[in-house]
């Protein structure tokens, strides 16, 4: 991404901690990235890597005992962390909206689909009449591929299937035409055929509406399918980021390499055993002094265990945080 292009969102050294009785958990330990308009970025990482926490922080839904302890989030140049409660309520849904992992529980069971869709619109702009809100709701349902939308808006969530509900969630996220949609594992709870349909739908809508999407997932296949850029997170840090081709064809961080090796490939003709990443994720209550991945890394050096690795520019926005690359760079110089 060239610097002269306008940025939609810029995250600078964001740090989020959870203050638990057992101590401070640094869920997000200083991450930086930027996104342009109509870009799709994937955030990949295993459970507990801080990818969801980071997304909740953007939209201001970080629950206590979580707290932002440093950094800034610039949305079109304005720092979201300085917004007060009211500004944030107005910002959510209008500028950025979010869809979640489990569509079965994410819709309020006691209100109709139409009521919930219209509410998303009406809570930002009361001047829209109910009639127009209804029409917009029907229009959105048509956009996400729901048949008979004028009948569906009178139905309750329990009368729809999981895939349908996720479509409704997407429609709800898009109804105010936000500039950014955060999708937190939107396909994880769905079965594979529905997953493919929802992904196809999101790709399609992204092309039509030109909005940006942050796509949080632990599924690299999904990333390859839909994203332009990828950030790989591990232990609250972005260990590698770049465009999709860089990440898939030229992975530079040992963790990214490990992830790709542990994934089955359809184009492989020789069937070999998958190679897992040995060990388990770090204890976030007592994170290591050095690189978070150090203890599981096959290339681990002495310095890795003692000092945080620097982020190394590999060109064209491709960056990775690893001592291996830092030392190589030095040798090259």
């Amino acid at each position: 991404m060239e610097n002269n292009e306008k940025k939609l969102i810029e995250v600078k050294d964001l740090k989020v901690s959870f203050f638990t009785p057992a101590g401070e958990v640094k869920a997000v330990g200083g991450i930086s990235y930027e996104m342009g308009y109509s870009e799709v970025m994937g955030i990949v990482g295993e459970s507990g890597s801080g990818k969801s926490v980071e997304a909740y922080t953007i939209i201001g839904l970080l629950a206590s005992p979580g707290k932002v302890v440093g950094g800034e989030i610039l949305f079109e140049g304005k720092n979201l962390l300085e917004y007060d409660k009211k500004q944030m309520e107005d910002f959510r849904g209008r500028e950025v909206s979010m869809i979640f992992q489990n569509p079965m529980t994410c819709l309020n069971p006691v209100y109709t689909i139409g009521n919930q869709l219209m509410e998303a619109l009406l809570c930002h702009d009361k001047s829209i009449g109910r009639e127009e809100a209804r029409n917009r709701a029907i229009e959105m349902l048509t956009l996400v591929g729901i048949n008979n939308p004028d009948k569906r808006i009178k139905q309750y969530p329990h009368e729809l299937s999981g895939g349908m509900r996720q479509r409704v969630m997407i429609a709800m996220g898009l109804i105010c035409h936000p500039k950014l949609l955060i999708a937190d594992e939107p396909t994880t709870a769905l079965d594979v055929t529905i997953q493919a349909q929802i992904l196809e739908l999101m790709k399609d809508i992204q092309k039509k509406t030109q909005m940006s999407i942050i796509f949080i997932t632990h599924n690299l296949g999904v990333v390859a399918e839909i994203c332009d850029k990828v950030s790989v997170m591990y232990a609250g840090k972005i260990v590698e980021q770049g465009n999709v081709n860089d990440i898939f064809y030229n992975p530079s961080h040992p963790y990214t390499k490990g992830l790709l090796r542990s994934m089955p490939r359809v184009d492989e003709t020789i069937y070999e055993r998958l190679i897992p990443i040995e060990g388990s994720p770090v204890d976030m209550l007592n994170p290591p002094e050095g690189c978070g991945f150090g203890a599981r890394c096959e290339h681990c050096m002495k310095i890795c265990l003692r000092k945080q690795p620097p982020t190394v520019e590999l060109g064209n926005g491709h960056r990775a945080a690893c001592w291996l690359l830092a030392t190589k760079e030095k040798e090259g110089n």
Partner: protein
Amino acid sequence: MAKYICKRIIMAIVVLLLIASLTFLLMNLVPGGPFLSEKAPSQAVLDALNAKYGLDQPLHIQLKNYMVNALHGDFGVSLKMQKNRPVTDIIIEMFPVSLRVGIVAVIVAVICGVPMGCIAAYYRGGKMDSFLRVVMTLGISIPGFVVATLLLIFFGVKLHWLPTMGLNGWTSYIMPAFTLAFYPMCYLGRLSRSSMLDAINQDYIRTARAKGVKGKAIIFKHALRNALIPVVTYLGPLTAGIVTGGFVAETVFCIPGLGRYFVQSVLNRDYPIIMATTIFLAALVILMNLVVDILYKVIDPRIDITKGGEH
């Protein structure tokens, strides 16, 4: 729905018959009788009285007679307390008194208790929450007669703000209604606090927040309606119990209501009054439960009461 309600009404009649029979038998098992007092009447007088009211017959004949009469709408006459006055007349006179105080009490309990629970849930863990929890715990642990007596001493005797007895003017409703309402109010508060906390942590609340719904609307639109089921469940029998009168409140504040009269009828062994008030209360409880079941459906569209009744 109409079919379901018919079925419930038929079931209700069966339940009422069972309750009536059981009460009749238990009542007769208790020693003593309506005509005994400090100065015992002679055996001849007793025999004559028993014969007059049919109490000399075997129990099962008495029960049969009572049931047949009751099904014709004749619940007998008072044997002792208001001699020879039809029991239905007495209930028609006394029930509205209890009903008026009771309805005020139910309204107070609901409009104070439920928001109290919501506020406590909203500020969970905070000072407001701790304060309300103390109040609610006090409320469910202090017996009614203590509340009534304290009110009487402060507002009636010391401050002279409120009348201490009877029902004359709206000020006289305040203390009895509050006495009746205090326990259910605090209980409702605890109930709604816990079910609100449960609702607040649901995924759909997060969705609502993500689309930018304001804090108050989240609590009162999205969370409250989901939290209402346990509250409504408790509210049914509660309403039936309160509108038929509280013995303590009616005794302390000298209100001629049904609650106090019911207890006195038991003490006096005034059989027809015991029977009629018991059946009346039972019918009211059954009716309120039916209302609650219908309300479930109104609150939560997922609930299908017509299937739930059959198991």
